[in-house]
């Protein structure tokens, strides 16, 4: 009947209670915006970094140091290394995919000329017996060429039930009979396989910078939520304006 009998929007909005609510809404919106920024940063950070040539081999000693974590720029780089294969220090890994087929890796233990230890995946075989049989005749070229990759997360005893399938440098150290103490934290996938094995399929790292769309969408969602926090404040103030403007008969218990 008489909708304009109550206070106006700004009269209600200027009350201390609603100024406080606005500050709260702004704080929430700022928090949401920060989360959106973080998602945007992640959408780029989790995309592969564009790099120059990774395929021309360079000396491992000029790329990485023993004991240091493998960095983004080292990851997937073709390297050369000279050293000797340690007799008897071989590990066979299960469940290794090679061009779609599940099989086994033979991993050798190399002591470089610089005296550091390096795990080298020598090749792939379809059966464990074939992989293990290659141990006897395994040799490495000099210099050995291969792709340098970061150590994988170790197997979990409860999940893997004793099956070793991860190329985990810490796990190898425990299995090696001889260990000098200075080790490369990454491992090498040999470009040419040892006799009796097939070459491990190890493609060059992707060079494209692609956005992680999932994170982009999350960033958009946070932006919408931030706007919604402000809208909710407006809506709540408007509710008060309407309530105070409407006849008493229209009111009811919440």
């Amino acid at each position, binding site marked *: 009947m008489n909708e304009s009998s109550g206070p106006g929007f700004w009269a209600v909005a200027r009350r201390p209670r609603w100024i406080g609510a606005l500050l709260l809404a702004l704080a929430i919106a700022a928090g949401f915006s920060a989360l959106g920024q973080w998602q945007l940063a992640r959408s780029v950070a989790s995309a592969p970094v564009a790099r120059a040539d990774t395929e021309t081999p360079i000396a491992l000693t000029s790329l990485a140091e023993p004991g240091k974590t493998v960095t983004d720029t080292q990851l997937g780089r073709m390297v050369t290394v000279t050293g000797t294969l340690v007799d008897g220090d071989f590990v066979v890994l299960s469940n290794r995919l090679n061009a779609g087929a599940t099989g086994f890796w033979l991993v050798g233990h190399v002591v470089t000329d610089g005296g550091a230890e390096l795990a080298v995946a020598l090749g792939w075989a379809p059966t464990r017996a074939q992989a293990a049989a290659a141990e006897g005749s395994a040799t490495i070229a000099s210099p050995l060429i291969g792709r340098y990759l970061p150590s994988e997360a170790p197997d979990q005893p409860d*999940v893997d039930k004793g099956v070793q399938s991860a190329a985990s440098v810490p796990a190898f150290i425990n299995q090696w009979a001889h260990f000098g103490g200075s080790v490369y934290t990454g491992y090498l996938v040999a470009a040419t396989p040892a006799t009796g094995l097939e070459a491990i399929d190890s493609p060059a790292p992707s060079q494209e910078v692609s956005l992680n769309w999932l994170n982009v969408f999350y960033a958009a969602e946070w932006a919408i939520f931030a706007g919604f926090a402000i809208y909710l404040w407006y809506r709540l103030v408007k509710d008060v304006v309407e309530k105070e403007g409407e006849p008493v*008969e*229209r009111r009811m218990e919440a």
Partner: protein
Amino acid sequence: MSLAPRPADVSRVRNVLRVFRVSAIVTGVFLLLLCAMMVLRYGFLVDIELNGPYGFLALTPRSRITGIDLSTAILIVHGWLYVVYLGCDFLLWRFVRFSFGRFLFFALGGIVPFLSFYFEFRIPAYVTARLAQAEVTPPVGVAA
């Protein structure tokens, strides 16, 4: 004290309630799947893998997943289902004009396991009762 629902909004409420009931059940189911997935991911350090090398459905450590990561899929799907649930909650709040605190309370349905299964029948009952109450006290000076 809050305002009675607008007569024009009453018919819309029925449509929203229909969507809400479906959304409450589907979101509730995905919330339970989400809880199971969280226990597996952070308790047992595995994700649910669909169509990977270890079988059609397998529990695989995250770093070794090559198939479809169902755990992450559950996470994303639940997020969007909750957006729909919140949308229904928001529309009911606007149309039925219950308190803001109640709006926030109903929003918990997508976060607290099993709560949405209770809300699925409790909220429509509450809304219907409130609309009936509004009809008993007809608006003054407003054509129904």
